């Protein structure tokens, strides 16, 4: 090994972008980062940012930061989506579109990885952080410091995946990087290593968050909140977190083994020397299928909160809702083979997993019916959260039926790897997961910031997303049935597919405009915040989070609530009884920057591992371990808050009931 190799690993000048579009991506990224840093410096906000936000252990603030990062990554993933749509609408016959085949492959790989790991997961953990402690009547999560570390690991992963815009290339092996394509022999550059390490660190963060919120819901519920009084959102989060806890370790192993193959010349998934690439597919989907339900369950939970509130009725079939969550949790672990029916397992294996897949539609159907029964004869308010629900229920049911079709192995042999599949899972993830999170964001926004989101812009955004979605993905179902495979960078003009691809492109543009409306909504809401100020209970809510002032105080509850009924706050409002507000002394965690520092060292480690700069790996490992050890010796991690202080602060706040 030469000295240069020792110091720089595989880094050299030749890893910088080599074409115009790649350069523009890198420049936009750099300009964005520089602009943000300059703005913070110009306004002199560094100290404020560090002490109020970056080091905060308050789950509400961590939740907001999650959503900000997820929103930024949505722009990146969305830009990728627009490039994909442009390429497929224009690259036909003699025209070859705007991207080279390799670059196109990098872009769809990045699009999938970013949207799942950094947009959907980020939004999900953001909402969970905002809502779960408030809903269960807790002041904090079980492990506040761990929560901060998880968030920063998520950020480190997001930063690493964006490094590939400037330094080196990204994986061309799709969002799940199947070997042998992702092995060193066929992907010799560092693209796949970027993919491995950014997912590995973000996945570690998710795993720790899963442990944290599972423990929070099991151990930190308010007095009197028995299991059957738990708000439905928390039930879905508990289901989702149990999937995180039991599925993410499989991802950790799979990624690690692929990295060992690539770096230590091992033979887990190679074509020769006793490796078995099909084992990779098996393992990655044993994680991958539960992952889908990790994302969708909290979205179900959001709707289970929204539909009763805006229908002015209690949720229909609470018990069946709980049972269906756990049916989904268990079933989601026994369906993973439906992602590779065509790999060649026997008919008995395919039949078993096909049947299990079809069965999972039953508990999901129970939920759909329960929401509709909740609306039935209710006094419905068609606010924007409710509109997102209505859009969801129609599209999600259609997408679900498409899923049941593909659950039949013989049909799957036709549809496998086609755009029909692409359209199906986008229906589930966009109109299921994303619509759900948007609804939740609109619904809980006032609890965090004390003012509502602007309704006018919200409704515009909804319609643009809805129509855009139908235009973008409706054609893909048709194209899939006509035989168009996914990930096409070019096709023959004689196939006659171009008009449908063009319509899909228009749909994508409408979605982009819809996203711009959401930005406009945020800006308008901040400008009109004084008009949109709300009380603690803007929607006539039912659960505990609406019983405290908006924005919620850092300690959530001045006095720890006692729960007597399922919709505790609603019952209190109906019966006119009030929580007995006995203030007591309590302690809250102090701010800590150690989570951010650990994640920074982990980033250094991962960057070194991608570029084979081994001293950087050692440095990162040493730094992260030392910071962690020093943190465990620090016993001064809490501030003690006196009852008199709380009473003083509460006196200055408007009571929740004054609407």
């Amino acid at each position, binding site marked *: 090994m030469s000295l240069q190799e020792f110091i720089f690993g595989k880094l050299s000048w030749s890893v910088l972008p080599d074409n115009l579009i790649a350069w523009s991506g890198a420049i936009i990224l750099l300009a964005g980062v520089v602009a943000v840093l300059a703005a913070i410096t110009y306004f002199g906000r560094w100290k404020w940012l560090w002490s109020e936000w970056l080091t905060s252990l308050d789950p509400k603030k961590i939740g907001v930061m999650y959503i900000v990062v997820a929103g930024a990554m949505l722009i990146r993933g969305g830009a990728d989506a627009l490039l994909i749509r442009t390429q497929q609408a224009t690259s036909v016959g003699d025209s070859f579109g705007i991207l080279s085949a390799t670059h196109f492959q990098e872009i769809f790989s990045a699009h999938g990885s970013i949207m799942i790991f950094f947009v959907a997961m980020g939004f999900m953990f953001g909402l969970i952080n905002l809502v779960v402690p408030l809903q269960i009547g807790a002041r904090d999560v079980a492990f506040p410091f761990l929560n901060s570390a998880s968030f920063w690991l998520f950020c480190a992963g997001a930063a690493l995946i964006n490094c590939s815009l400037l330094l080196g290339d990204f994986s061309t092996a799709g969002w799940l990087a199947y070997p042998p394509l992702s092995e060193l022999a066929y992907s010799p550059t560092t693209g796949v290593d970027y993919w491995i390490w950014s997912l590995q660190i973000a996945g570690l963060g998710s795993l720790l968050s899963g*442990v944290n919120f599972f423990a929070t819901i099991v*151990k930190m519920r308010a007095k009197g909140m028995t299991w059957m009084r738990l708000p439905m959102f928390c039930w879905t989060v508990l289901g989702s977190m149990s999937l995180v806890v039991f599925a993410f*370790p499989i991802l950790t192993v799979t990624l690690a083994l692929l990295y060992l193959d690539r770096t230590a010349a091992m033979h*887990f998934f190679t074509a020769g020397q006793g*490796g078995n690439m099909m084992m990779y597919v098996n393992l990655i989907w044993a994680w991958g299928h539960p992952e889908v339900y990790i994302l969708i369950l909290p979205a179900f939970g959001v709707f289970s909160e929204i539909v009763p509130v805006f229908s002015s009725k209690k949720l229909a079939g609470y018990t069946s809702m709980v049972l269906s969550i756990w049916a989904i949790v268990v079933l989601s672990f026994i369906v993973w083979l439906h992602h590779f029916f065509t790999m060649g397992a026997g008919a008995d294996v395919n039949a078993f997993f096909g049947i299990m897949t079809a069965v999972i539609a039953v508990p999901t159907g129970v939920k759909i019916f329960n929401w509709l029964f909740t609306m039935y004869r209710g006094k419905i308010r068609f606010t924007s959260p409710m509109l997102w629900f209505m859009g969801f229920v129609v599209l999600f049911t259609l997408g679900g039926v498409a899923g049941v079709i593909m659950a039949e192995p013989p049909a799957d042999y036709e549809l496998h790897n086609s755009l029909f599949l692409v359209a199906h899972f986008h229906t589930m993830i966009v109109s299921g997961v994303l619509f759900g999170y948007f609804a939740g964001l609109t619904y809980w926004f006032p609890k965090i910031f004390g003012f509502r989101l602007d309704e006018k812009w919200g409704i515009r955004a909804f319609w643009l997303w809805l129509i855009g979605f139908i235009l973008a993905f409706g054609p893909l179902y048709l194209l899939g049935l006509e035989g168009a495979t996914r990930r096409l960078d070019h096709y023959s003009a004689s196939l006659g597919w171009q008009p449908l691809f063009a319509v899909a492109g228009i749909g994508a543009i409408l979605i982009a405009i819809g996203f711009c409306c959401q930005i406009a909504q945020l800006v308008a809401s901040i400008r009109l915040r004084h008009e949109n100020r709300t009380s603690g209970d803007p929607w006539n809510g039912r659960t505990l989070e609406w019983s405290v002032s908006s924005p919620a105080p850092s300690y959530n509850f001045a006095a720890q609530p006692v729960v007597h009924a399922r919709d505790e706050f609603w019952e209190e409002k109906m019966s006119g009884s009030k929580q007995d507000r006995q203030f007591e002394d309590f302690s809250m965690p102090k701010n800590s920057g150690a989570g951010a520092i650990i994640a920074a060292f982990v980033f250094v480690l991962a960057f070194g591992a991608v570029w084979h700069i081994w001293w950087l790996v050692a440095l990162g490992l040493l730094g992260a371990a030392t910071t962690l050890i020093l943190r*465990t010796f620090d016993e001064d991690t809490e501030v003690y808050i006196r009852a008199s202080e709380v009473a003083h602060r509460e006196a200055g706040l408007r009571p929740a009931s004054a609407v």
Partner: protein
Amino acid sequence: MNDTNEILSVDERSKGSTTVFGFWLYLMTDLVLFASLFAVFAVLRGPAFGGASMGNMFSLPYVLVETIVLLSSSFACGIALLCARAGSIRGALAWLSATFVLGAIFVGMEVSEFSSLIAQGDGPSKNGFLSSYFTLVGTHGTHVAIGLLWLLILIVAMLQRGLTHGNMRKLALFAMFWHFLEIVWIFIFTIVYLTGSL
């Protein structure tokens, strides 16, 4: 003042029990991690491609000694916990030292086994079976090595501050971790070594 102490101890108790539960969840994630590695091992333990086959790769008596050393280490850790419960910091430290020494012997034996395999040309990059063998057993060994580091830090903290609530809690978590690693080893011993030698 008396009142405050009362509140703190209730607080301390619920925090301790939450931490034990949370750590248990972490152990369960580790369980799934090892299960995945076992599944990989079971699938790849096929042809040897010119490398050593499992039957003649290792000596069973050597592995038996490893096994008994780790089991004794796990037992010593349990006794240390009982000493701490009885309030004897000297007993706890003595048994934790025994835990450490036995654990270190285990890691040393494993390292020497690995290095002799690599020296005879049967390293992890030889074939799929050896990759999965080294990774499964090595992941367990790495856990034990990290546990040793943790134990060292815990001993330092106990020497510094004595049997505080914080140290008692960390000791309880460490004991769970250590017993868990011994439980994983039962299956490595049985599935990798015993059935492998048949």
